[in-house]
């Protein structure tokens, strides 16, 4: 039997005149890894803050573990782990003090908090840095410490806002590995990201957000199958000629998309599309056939790239 940990209905968040979250419906089951995908400003962080019970709901309804954040905020937060977008580690404390003192905020006894802190240092691969001052850690280490800290209360659900933004590729893979382990232990993961690969790697199911609204929902595979072709042909022409040449690829594949630096041709058979391009006498500087990704889904749904 499934159990919904998050149920949002027509959820709205307004800041004055500005509507950050514009009536979204979301349901997240226990044990799932669920993602909010979208560009900066799509309303992902505002949604996460409402789920984290640190931002009041403007209208609509939100239930976490069946409880209302407006009346049961502290009880809900007791069962959540939160990894904010920007590290809020305590720079006046050492690595292990950051962990056990945070545990005290959850009313853990001092000995229990210290015991868990020790375990989490292992999990975060920071055992040899236990007595370092936080400021001396690398970006990847700080992120791992943030995640370790969010686990001190053994949360049932972990909220991660842009967990790997600003990290180098190796640090990202280490982090993904840790998150994957948590998921295997049964922790429900809810994350926001504007990285396609992250969403594809980590999420069982995701919603694509744009301008405060949900524009699509499904597993990464489903979304790609539903909204994009199997393959994509990427063509680069001599700088500045993309726009002029774009009309000439019209009719090749199912759809064409003109981007500032390249032309995308959506086709189930990318090689055939490339052959068709050459047959028209076009000579792109480079051509690449790849599988469709969530990036393409997003482009199709919103007409914009995620980096916009």
């Amino acid at each position: 039997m499934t159990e919904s940990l998050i149920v949002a209905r027509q959820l709205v968040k307004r800041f004055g005149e500005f509507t950050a979250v514009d009536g979204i419906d979301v349901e997240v089951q226990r044990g799932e890894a669920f993602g909010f995908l979208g560009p900066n400003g799509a309303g992902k962080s505002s949604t996460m803050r409402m789920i984290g019970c640190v931002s009041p709901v403007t209208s609509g309804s939100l239930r976490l573990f069946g409880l209302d954040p407006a009346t049961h905020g502290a009880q809900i937060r007791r069962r959540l782990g939160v990894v904010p977008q920007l590290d809020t580690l305590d720079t006046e404390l050492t690595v292990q003090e950051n962990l056990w003192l945070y545990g005290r905020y959850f009313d853990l006894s001092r000995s229990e908090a210290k015991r868990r802190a020790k375990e989490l240092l292992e999990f975060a691969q920071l055992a040899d840095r236990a007595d370092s001052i936080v400021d001396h850690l690398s970006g990847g280490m700080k992120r791992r410490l943030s995640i370790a800290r969010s686990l001190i209360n053994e949360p049932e659900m972990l909220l991660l806002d842009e967990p790997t933004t600003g990290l180098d590729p190796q640090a990202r893979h280490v982090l993904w590995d840790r998150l994957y382990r948590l998921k295997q232990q049964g922790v429900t993961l809810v994350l926001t990201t504007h990285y396609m690969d992250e969403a594809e790697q980590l999420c069982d199911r995701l919603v694509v957000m744009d301008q405060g609204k949900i524009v699509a929902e499904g597993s990464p595979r489903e979304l790609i199958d539903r909204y994009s072709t199997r393959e994509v042909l990427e063509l680069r022409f001599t700088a500045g000629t993309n726009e002029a040449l774009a009309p000439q690829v019209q009719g090749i594949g199912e759809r064409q998309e003109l981007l500032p630096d390249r032309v995308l041709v959506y086709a189930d058979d990318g090689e055939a599309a490339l052959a068709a391009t050459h047959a028209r006498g076009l000579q792109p500087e480079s051509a690449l056939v790849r599988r469709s990704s969530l990036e393409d889904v997003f482009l199709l749904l919103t007409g914009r790239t995620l980096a916009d």
Partner: protein
Amino acid sequence: MSGELRILPVAFTARRPQRMIERHIVAYRRQWLIIVSGFFEPLFYLLSMRAGLGNLVGKVSVAGTQVPYDAFVAPALMASSAMNGAIFDSTGNVLHRLKYARIYDAALATPMSPTDVAMGEIGWALLRGQLYSISFLGVMAALGLVQSWWVLMALPACALIGLTFAGIGFAGTTYMRGWADMDIVNTATMPLFLFSATFFPAASYGSWAWVVQLSPLYHGVALVRAANAGVWTASILAHIAVLLLVSIIALSIAARRLDVLLRK
């Protein structure tokens, strides 16, 4: 329901302010020199009064008796020191934790509430202030400036002064935009320090004496001075009432503003 009845409970909804205090104790274990340095301030103040001004001014009348000038000033300096300590702890340190280190954001993702954070900060300021007040009292006694055993009542009096100014400092800090606004703190506390019947009796202000009464520090100075003299009058209750009222209002504003700032 009246405003007072609604703002009263705010301070009492704190459940775990002690967690914030625990954090500070751990953090300051490595910065004990900062704590120790605070002990020297009163010593320097009192010595300068004895060696310098005291000799020039002679005696002053307190509660009908003539006392040496340094014995007149010492309780006022003790009260001012309680104010300065509380202001120091509740402005710069709080601004740093609120806007730059974002320590409160992290705390609010846990069962901690904004009221817990605000009351914890104020509790810490009080704790630290009491340490300094005790040392101040020790220095006063060593210099022979203590006039009565009642002087021990100066400790709760200083706690009340600390509560009032930590509340005002914290509430004010929630309105600061950045470090530049810290200058206002000095501009605001300096006249309080100088014109709260600290260095001369309120009577010397003549027809302006009522202005002095607007200063919360004036009421604090009156309490500490009464404690040192061991002479209690009904007006003491009025001084306590003023400080309590200002504290409750300031603390309520502080907790509410913190909620507005951090739970957007």
